[in-house]
């Protein structure tokens, strides 16, 4: 800690602290309000919106979990996110390795094509992708989300991984080459351990993106048993729009674990999300 933290705070610093605290509290309050409202009865939510629950209605959570089939939604989301992120990060690492360390025909053209993916918003191809997935008989299967989500995250992931590769001199790889290792061995045993921290950052970045994906999930999966959490939540709140306690309970169940995970992994999460805009 620097010496600045030991000095007593000046009035200006107290003012800074005060203003910041009020703004942050006001913005964080809706999340807290949602959590404790999940434990109230509808009557309480309506009559005393600010008060804590008189009796904590744990039953709300159980009812929301069962009525909304939140367990299924969680499982679907976990499976789709894991598969899409693993596919995207592995392929992107290999491609970034190829674009920075190797020479082959079409290298520049391929990289430029990939950069197109940074310019195009997903809604632009959503419809064509829908008919394509239907013709491939992939609609209403997990693959209808895994493959497109992995593909759509590729451009950014290759772009960022390439920057990491460029930031590291290829001396280790060259030395391994002189020792007679083939290119696959170099990628797996030298490069991957070297860029592993960057891969972790990409895993976090892509996990958040795929976990929260709504547009593709809404269009490509219409079967209730295959849905992911974001779509399931929107449907749930649509069906039960008058049962406030139940919707708050479902919201709490779907957001609180994510918030806890975020506060534990805060450093990695922030590094992952800001990688998009730094340098």
């Amino acid at each position, binding site marked *: 800690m620097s010496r600045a933290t030991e000095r007593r705070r000046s009035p200006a610093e107290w003012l800074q602290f005060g203003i910041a605290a009020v703004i942050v509290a006001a913005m964080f309050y809706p999340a807290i309000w949602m959590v404790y409202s999940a434990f109230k009865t509808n009557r309480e939510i309506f009559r005393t919106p600010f008060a804590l629950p008189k009796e904590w209605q744990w039953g709300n959570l159980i009812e929301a979990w069962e009525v909304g089939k939140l367990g299924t939604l969680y499982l679907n989301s976990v499976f789709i996110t894991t598969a899409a992120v693993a596919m995207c990060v592995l392929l992107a690492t290999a491609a970034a390795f190829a674009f920075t360390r190797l020479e082959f025909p079409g290298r520049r053209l391929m990289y430029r094509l990939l950069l197109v993916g940074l310019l195009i918003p997903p809604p632009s191809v959503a*419809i064509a992708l829908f008919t394509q997935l239907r013709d491939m008989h992939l609609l209403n299967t997990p693959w209808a989300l895994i493959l497109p989500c992995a593909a759509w995250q590729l451009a950014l992931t290759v772009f960022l991984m390439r920057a990491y590769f460029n930031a590291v001199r290829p001396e280790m790889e060259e030395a391994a080459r002189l020792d007679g290792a083939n290119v696959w061995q170099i990628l797996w045993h030298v490069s991957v351990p070297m860029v592993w921290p960057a891969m972790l950052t990409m895993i976090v970045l892509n996990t958040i993106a795929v976990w929260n994906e709504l547009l593709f999930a809404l269009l490509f999966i219409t079967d209730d048993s295959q849905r992911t959490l974001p779509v399931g939540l929107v449907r749930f709140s649509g069906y039960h729009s008058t049962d406030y306690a139940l919707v708050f309970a479902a919201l709490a169940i779907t957001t609180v674990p994510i918030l806890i995970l975020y506060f534990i992994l805060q450093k990695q999460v922030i590094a992952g999300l800001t990688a998009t805009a730094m340098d």
Partner: protein
Amino acid sequence: MAIEDRAAPISSGAGNLWFAAPAMLLFGTFVLWPLGASVYYAFTFWDGFSAPRWAGFANFARGLTDITYLMSYVHVVLYILATLVFEVSFGLVMAVLLNSDRPGFALMRGMFFSPVVLSMSAGGVLWTFVLDYRTGLLNSVLKALGLGDWAQPWMSQPETALLFICLVSGWKYAGFYMVIFFAALRRIPKNIYEAARLDGANALHQFFHVTLPMLRQNILVCVLLAVMGGFAGFDLFFTMSNGQPFGATEVPATWIIKQAFDQDQIGYGVALTVILTVVVSLISIVYIRLSERANVTRY
């Protein structure tokens, strides 16, 4: 974004294609192919099932005279302008405000950033309840403050619905821009501020004459992200209003989905996506060119 800033390759030959091929295959199949197919379908009448019939420019002509579609661009531009205020500018101000090593500030930064990791659908559902006319948090606060007359059905009035979607978007994303600016602030050498203080610059002067110029590059990137993210905006609009009330919050993405899937006009919907792609690509290319030139002349 220089393409050739790399060391000599460790291996060359067509065999090395295998390292990039899987990624390119996936990208080609699910990004480039549907993009190309879109351009073809855009010139056809197609309900998605029977064979497409050639339509020439009919879909485009219809799109350019579709009042709702044109208005959706007005809404999305208003939304983007609002995000520049509620997300980028607010994020910048909060980065400066939360830039301190004192106890408590790290926690506040973490709390301020937390909505970024939540899904738009969770955020949208939560705020729909906050803004509810009868039982919403906002109107309850107004009543508690004795301002009950100010309570409004915020999301069912055309004049306020779009504004509140912009505010919720700010709640969700200001933290993202805050951490970017915060990281950049930490890289500004302290002695620049000391020199400015010796010259008699107060906090406001320091912000406008030291902080802003030093963050120039980051601000340019953040504006680009906000503009491109804005045009792609769908989740929050779909969750909170889906174009209602009276089309006041219709944006290109929500309108396109309705045309294609609710009306079975795949050809027409695809033409609207092609227009969107062209608009977004043109704007971002022009913006990138302009900001590169601005940097060349500046330094």
